């Protein structure tokens, strides 16, 4: 049996090579179908990677909650303790300065910079892609000057990053420790993260600290909106609560500790949108894959048709093989494998076509936009496997019926043709 199998395969390859015209003829439908399938899988994969990278850079890893507490806090550190108690694994303040500061570089002043006060742990909540320098560390908390990480667009405009000042009423020297890669979808043109630290206290919260509160500078701020990014366990029910009520309720049980009376003053929503993007991409992919499968089905009918016609035309040839000692099994393998070879050739043509299109598209997009790091246009291995696998499967399906016909045909009758 093993060498009647290999013999079948050898005959199939030789047959497809000897009948290039037939091979090409039956390819067309499969090329289109497999091409469509490869494109769908590649696009889905790209969309997924892009959305994940974009989401992780801009909205946080799964599952990140945005928590806003409205009102005057009496004890910020109590709130932060309670955020952890409610399930927070990493948390970072996420504070718009009470009064938007400006940046100055030499005699140039930038008044339209989006500032956000954050903690070093934001680096654990979001993926920070640094073009230069580094993200904040605990050591930066000791800095005498406010510490910033700016985006690249802003960095390019600022020029010399060692000579920057920040201020709203008076100018303070700042330390810029890192430059973030701009992404294609940055919302603000110029943006800067400012580390929450004693040195930036006044800029962020706009209060001059009362003498009696000197030990704990964050107590009693004038800010009425207090925002945090909190990463929780993605399997926590609070991660799948669309209105954030579960997490808000957890906080509300002890909100008296930090001076908030009502659960209505606590706003929680999930910022990362991994789940939604997954769902959208899945539905889109399913729809497109459906179309691809239909096209592939049409291609299958083409190969089947050509297979049936050629088996009829080739009765004499197949009978000759039998006379020369081919078993039925060998012939079956040969005919099925021919269809598989044809389909695989079609699949490879499709793959090459897709590769050309995607590469060209990659060159064009690279000129137009900058993709997030780690995300590039290309054909993923999964698309190659799915494309070639489905091509082989279609060949197998399309080959079986002609192969059964080929077996049934009488050798004697075939030789008389």
């Amino acid at each position: 049996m093993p060498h009647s199998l290999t013999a079948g395969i050898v005959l199939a390859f030789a047959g497809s090579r000897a009948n290039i015209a037939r091979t090409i003829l039956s390819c067309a439908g499969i090329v289109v179908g497999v091409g469509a399938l490869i494109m769908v899988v590649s696009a889905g994969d790209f969309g997924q990677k892009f959305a994940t990278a974009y989401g992780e850079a801009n909205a946080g890893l799964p599952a990140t909650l945005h928590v806003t507490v409205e009102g005057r806090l009496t004890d910020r550190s109590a709130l932060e303790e309670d955020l952890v108690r409610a399930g927070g694994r990493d948390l970072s303040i996420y504070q718009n300065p009470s009064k938007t500061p400006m940046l100055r570089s030499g005699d140039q002043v930038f008044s339209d910079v989006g500032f956000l006060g954050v903690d070093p742990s934001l680096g654990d909540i979001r993926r920070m892609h640094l073009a230069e320098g580094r993200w904040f560390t605990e050591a930066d908390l000791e800095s005498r000057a406010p510490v910033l990480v700016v985006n690249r667009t802003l960095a390019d405009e600022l020029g010399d990053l060692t000579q920057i000042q920040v201020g709203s009423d008076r100018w303070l020297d700042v330390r810029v420790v890192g430059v973030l890669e701009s992404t294609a979808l940055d919302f603000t043109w110029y943006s800067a993260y400012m580390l929450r630290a004693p040195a930036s206290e006044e800029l962020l919260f706009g209060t001059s600290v009362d003498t009696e509160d000197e030990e704990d500078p964050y107590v009693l701020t004038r800010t009425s909106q207090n925002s945090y990014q909190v990463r929780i366990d993605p399997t926590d029910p609070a991660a799948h609560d669309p209105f954030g009520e579960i997490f808000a309720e957890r906080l509300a049980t002890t909100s008296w500790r930090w001076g908030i009376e009502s659960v209505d003053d606590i706003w929680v929503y999930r910022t990362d949108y991994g789940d939604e993007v997954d769902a959208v991409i899945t539905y889109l992919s399913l729809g497109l894959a459906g179309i691809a499968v239909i096209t592939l089905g049409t291609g299958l009918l083409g190969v089947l048709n050509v297979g049936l016609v050629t088996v009829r035309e080739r009765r004499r040839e197949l009978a000759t093989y039998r006379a020369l000692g081919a078993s039925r099994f060998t012939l079956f393998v040969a005919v099925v494998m021919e269809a598989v070879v044809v389909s695989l050739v079609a699949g490879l043509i499709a793959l090459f076509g897709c590769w050309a299109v995607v590469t060209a598209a990659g060159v064009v997009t690279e000129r137009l936009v900058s993709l997030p790091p780690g995300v590039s246009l290309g054909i993923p291995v999964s698309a190659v496997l799915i494309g070639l696998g489905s091509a082989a499967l279609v060949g197998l399906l399309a080959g079986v019926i002609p192969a059964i016909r080929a077996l049934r045909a009488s050798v004697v009758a075939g030789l008389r043709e």
Partner: protein
Amino acid sequence: MPVDVETPWSGASRPDSAPLLRVEGVTRHFTVSGRRIDVLRDCTFQVERGEIVAVVGQSGSGKSTLLNVLGLLDRPSGGSYVFDGVDTTRLGEGRRSRLRGEGIGFVFQQFHLLERRTALANVGVPLVLGGVPLLRRRARARELLEAMGLGHRLHSRPHQLSGGEQQRVALARALSRDPALILADEPTGALDAASSTMIMEQLLEQARSRDAAVVVVTHDPQVAGRADRVVELVEGRTR
């Protein structure tokens, strides 16, 4: 001595006196639109190893039908056919194919070469089926074609060859696995006189040098005259 007909004779233990094949009381009928046509009524004869046998008879007497039975391409309706010590009537399709590939070479009137394939590839097909690896296959096919005087035609396709050349390729193909039996159904029927003579010469010479038996169906008295023995088919019976 009891003979286990299921087991082919191994080379060492096979008595030289055993015939290569033996048909006994073989019949074959066809049913065409409800009517039964008896083509072979009673065929009984044997062929020794290396023997050249000519089968003659009128057109429609069943010569091709008999050859199909001998070649294991067709099953008789009745009677027994023992080939190389094996009772073939009891064999399954797979073993019949194997026996055919290993033991029998065909030469057809219409050559039946594979179109679009070179002479070399055509001669190689039985070797593919026999599981002979590519390089040995090529070497063997080349050697056979050269022996047929076709060394300069290795890469020609059938339509680029004359009838006589095509039949020589077919002959080389029939010989490629060194069969014990060569079946030729009017091998010169489609050829002119000169080619016919040449083909018959080569067929007989090759068969003799390999000790292969030949059963050749022919209308040509000259061909029949060169055989060791002539079997005549009259109304489906051998004489």
